[in-house]
């Protein structure tokens, strides 16, 4: 265990392995025994060289793909044991995803993108629309509600993606290089936004980033090399607000 704190553990990973193309000649052992604990309200950064397994780890946490061994507990639930349908519902209700590129449905407007997870939860479309609008306004996108993603700047797109991840009020938000495509000013805006939400709602953030400066905005940084966690740096880092 790299981390210990007395508040409630929301995500607990033990001995997680992932092999791609298992048993074939081109097998890749992408995760080689990951142990990790994240507490509710933590904001954690994952750093590491390209190809070390960061994206793979996020995908495993969100059950976007099957793992090859180990355990994942989210809010005390052994999510490995759930069926695909249950995993999907679990993901829908508890996990928000933010990706680096092509984050939004290009054929839906900003507000439509954001309201979709609520619709999946069965909300009335009018209520979903109102909530999505409110959240977008909160995120400063009030004047871009009906724009299509292609008509938005990278930062704006990312803010819509954030809104979509947040709308269901998930316990954990997973971000795979959420600022990777953005310039430094916009990146700063986005990470500041994360921090604010994190503070306000006590939502847990797991962010993969290559940017040291971004990482330092988090509570702590997990370093990965070759499918393993190599070390962890605890914050607070220099100019935390």
């Amino acid at each position, binding site marked *: 265990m790299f981390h210990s704190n007395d508040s409630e553990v929301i995500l607990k990973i033990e001995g997680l392995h992932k092999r791609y193309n298992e048993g074939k000649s081109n097998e890749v052992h992408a995760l080689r025994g990951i142990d990790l604990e994240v507490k509710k309200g933590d904001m954690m950064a994952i750093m590491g060289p390209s190809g070390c397994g960061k994206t793979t780890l996020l995908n495993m946490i969100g059950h976007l793909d099957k793992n090859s061994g180990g355990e994942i507990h989210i809010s005390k639930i052994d999510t490995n044991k759930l069926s695909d349908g249950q995993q999907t519902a679990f993901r829908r209700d508890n996990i928000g*995803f933010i990706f680096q590129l092509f984050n939004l*449905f*290009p*054929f839906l407007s900003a507000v439509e993108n954001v309201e979709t997870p609520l619709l*999946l939860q069965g909300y009335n479309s009018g209520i979903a629309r109102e909530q999505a609008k409110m959240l977008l306004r909160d995120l400063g996108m009030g004047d871009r509600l009906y724009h299509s993603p292609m008509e938005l700047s990278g930062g704006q797109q990312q803010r819509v993606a954030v809104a979509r991840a947040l709308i269901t009020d998930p316990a954990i938000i997973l971000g795979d290089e959420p600022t990777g495509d953005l310039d430094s000013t916009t990146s700063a805006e986005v990470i500041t936004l994360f921090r604010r939400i994190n503070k306000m709602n006590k939502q847990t953030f797991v962010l993969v980033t290559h940017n040291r400066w971004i990482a330092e905005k988090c509570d702590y940084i997990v370093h990965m090399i070759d499918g393993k966690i190599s070390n962890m740096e605890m914050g607070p880092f220099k100019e935390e607000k």
Partner: protein
Amino acid sequence: MGLISSIKIAKRALTRRKTKNFSAILAIALGVTLMVGIQITTDTLENAFLTSLLIREGEVDIRFSNGTGGFLSAADESNISALVPDALAIMSELQSSGPAMIGSQFEPSVSMAGIPLDYNEAFGNFYDWDTGEVMDISTYLADNSSVLLSSSLAEDMDINKSTELPINLTTEFTSITIVPKLNESTGFPILNETTGFPILELQITEERVILSITEIFDSRRPGIGASYRGVLFSLDAYQDWMSLQDPLRNKDIIGAYLITYQTDHFSTPIDETVLQEKFDALEERLPVKMVNDQEVNVYAIDSSRLLYIGLIDLIFGLMSSFLNVLGLLIIITGILLITNVQLMSVEDREFQTGVLRAVGEKRGGIFRSMLFETLFQGIFGGIFGLVGGLIFGQLVALYLVSLFGSGSASVQPLVKESVVIFSVIVGVILGMLTGLLPALRASRVNIVEALRGIKITFEEKSSRNLAFIGVLLSFLGIFFFLNNGIINRNLQYIWLTSGWDNISEWENILLGAGFLFTGLGIVLSRYISRTKAFNLTSIVLWGTPVFMFVVAMGSGWITDMSGSSLNILIIAIIEIVIGSVMLVGMNLPYIMRFLRSTLIKIPGVKGVAQVAPALISSHKTRSTLTFAIFAVVLTLNVTVASLVATNIDSTVGQSEEDSRGIDLYVQLSDPEYNLANTSYTTELYRIDSAITDVIGMKTFKPGSTDYTRYVATKNPFSPDFNPQSNLLPLGFGELRSDQILGDAQNATDDEDWRFDFYMYNLPDGVRPTSIDLGASDEVLLDQSKRAWDKFFDPEYRMTAYNITLDLENFDISNFGGFTASTLEEVDPILDINGSEVQYPIVFTDSFLLPLGMPIWIPFNTSQFGFPVYQPFTIGGSFDSDRAGGWPLSRSMQTEGFSSGSFSGTLGTVYFPERFSSYTDFFGMADELSPDKREPDQFDTYLIKTTYPFDSPAIEDVAQSIEDFTNTKDSGYRKLIGDEFMVATATSLYSKLEASLEMMEQMTNFLQIYVNFGLIIGAVGMAVISVRNVAERKREIGMMRAIGFPRYQVMTAALLELMVLGFIGLIIGVVNGLFVNVGFSNMLDVPVVIPWGTIGAYLSFITFIGLLAGAIPGWVASRIPAAEALRYVG
């Protein structure tokens, strides 16, 4: 980068993006299959018709016969040979026909021919029916009672290959001898008072002869055998028998000399234009002699081959153009499919181009590599398509065999190289163009934008060039409008009410509105939004023909249906299809918004409701093309399906009313005997007490070589009379007023008429100036009765109009039965004094004879064997569209082409009784004629019964009539002491059924034809769906990531396709029904909606949508989300 690296890039692209390439290849393949298949089908059908006719001509190109009737002699051979120095061979032939009885089977008229045993081998071979080997006929025709039988006749006579030969055939020959006239009481010859010699008279007897069938030859196989379908004698033997007709027993008689210019006509068809030239030149060279101070040809020549080719053009013309329209629309479907799939690559290509450009690839290199890629797709697609088309053609040919099969040899899939090459090239080029153009365009776009995946938007405003085209189109439209009245003075201005009342005016209105508003739409879209501009265009495109079909035709605005009704159908269908597809396509976002708002209320599919409609409207062009495929194909399918239903239903429903009480009719193989105490009519009443009325009639059909009894469509004594194209083998019928009017005096007499059936075209004085399509049955019957009054009025004459019928230049748009005539646009014929030429009238059921046309009917034959022609005006035609209409006609539907009886196909001319005594064929003109008949010696009987029209009891009556007449040694045969008499009793209902069956066969064929489009459309849908899903992998990953359950991912894919399929279906059904309303308004029959068929289409579309959408959707929903997310295209 060089050529090699371009190829390498293309190769990598091809191997990596398998699904996409596969779908492009498949789309091109399907498109090419459609084009090749449809072409092969159409060509094969036409060829099947033609060969089934031509095969009967064997190797004969031209026939010489006696120019003044009668026979030729052996001495003519050298003269004729000299006339045709370029002929390959010449052969003599003597043909006639007679009854034949084999076993218990009797045929009233079998063709018999004698040919020389040493005939030139250029005319081909006879083949043994059994072994298929070449026969030497001389070994079988040793004496004058040995004959050969054709396999066609053998089959009719219930003889099969295992029947033991020889078998006997009984026939009759007419024998004429000169005998002294005997005093009836003394029995001594009567002497001429002045000369003292006995008075001579002709004794005509029928000599019954038993012949021996020594072998059967195959008459379904190309060769000389195919041209003899009855009984074959040696020439000498047949001359023996035929000479019995000559009191002097002259045996040097030849019926015709046959000329051939080449061998193997079947495998290497003769060039018809060359043959026509030879024929024309020969006609100029024919020697003449003087008869009665008139120059007449010594020889008459004819070429059935040329005639058949002409006829096929004529009969097939309508069918062919209908098929071509269908084919064209189906091919458009193929084009839509190719374009659609290739359009999907656009975004793809843009990204790819962006990457390549970013790493420094030049435009030329990009173009080259894409060229290779699309070339590869095009060539493979073309090859597969060709194979598919050939297979399809083969299958259709097989079906055609069962449909028209008079011999499998006559239906071969006809694969024209030019057609195949053309279709494949079009497919390949189309595939490449639709693939390359967007790529080329992409290679010019901003690299950064391409990389960022910004779509090329099609919403931009029209360019100036486009606007210019729009202006041009508008002017073209105005030109069409102005055509009415200003350019074409026969039509009225559009701003007059009379400018909206005929089909030709509407043709210009449709075209004018179409072009004007397309142009306007393009121009307007520069100033207002494209959606609004093109909504206007599409509403006009769709609305004009619909208005015409429903309002203008339905409420009787269009009073004159003459003109090219086929053109109007084609133009209207095309406009309706384009208009509807465009209209729905333009408003797709609104429809999708509606769909979303409906679906989003349903729990469990809210996610689907959010993405599927949005996906559809985000790719407007692509979605439009997708539903357009089904819209086009289904418009055709529903049109065809409801046409059939409309026709069939209206036929059955109205037939009882139309039959005017006639339940069945009987045809005798020979005119009835002139019996002292009874008549056939009397006997018929005795057969069944349910028979309430028997109307006896006289009819006649000329033999196939009996040119002296063909109807002339031009004055036979005018210098430009051409026997080749101006003689028609029509049947004749005599109509007496008691047969039609019964006890009634005239039209105003309220007494029930005996047989007052419906007339279609009416004579002068009865015909209204404009044709009212909505006229009630009473009005139509009243008009018909007044027409009959004219017909029987000996004083009545009708003006002959300047209408000619030329078989070689037949104008299909005047297709007789297709349009009612007002004769408004044709001029009367004037004589040298300038007054109108008027003749007595005849009525007809022939679609070949337009109202008002003069015809010349050959009456009694003069002593020179030359007919005396009486001119008539066609004063009316029977309404053959009204089921019972004229029970004696409609043989075309029942017999089709395979029976080979053209006079049956071409119809009959009916003239009033007062002319009968001038004819040979009704037997009263020439006492010497063997056909001599008394006024009441009938051959055809129309019968009314107490039973309802469709009662099975009528079949029983028909059966008892046949039993009474056709049973050996009893009934009628016993009465007349003749076994050579056969009755065929046919109930009108069964006739109707038969014609419905024929109609169904034809429409089944059409159905197959259009269903082919449906199947290709369905496969195309599957391709599009696979493509869609493959391309949206990333979106699908994202959907899964944010919590879309698998079933919703699948449903989304499914829904997209289903929605597009249903839109296509709805457009198709609505359009098809409107077209059908128009069609039934044109034909004046009630509309019938084939709900069953539409239901079948609905299930088909649902099934295809489910299958085509669900399978790829299911596959996609199984892909781990993480993997899908990594997909970048």
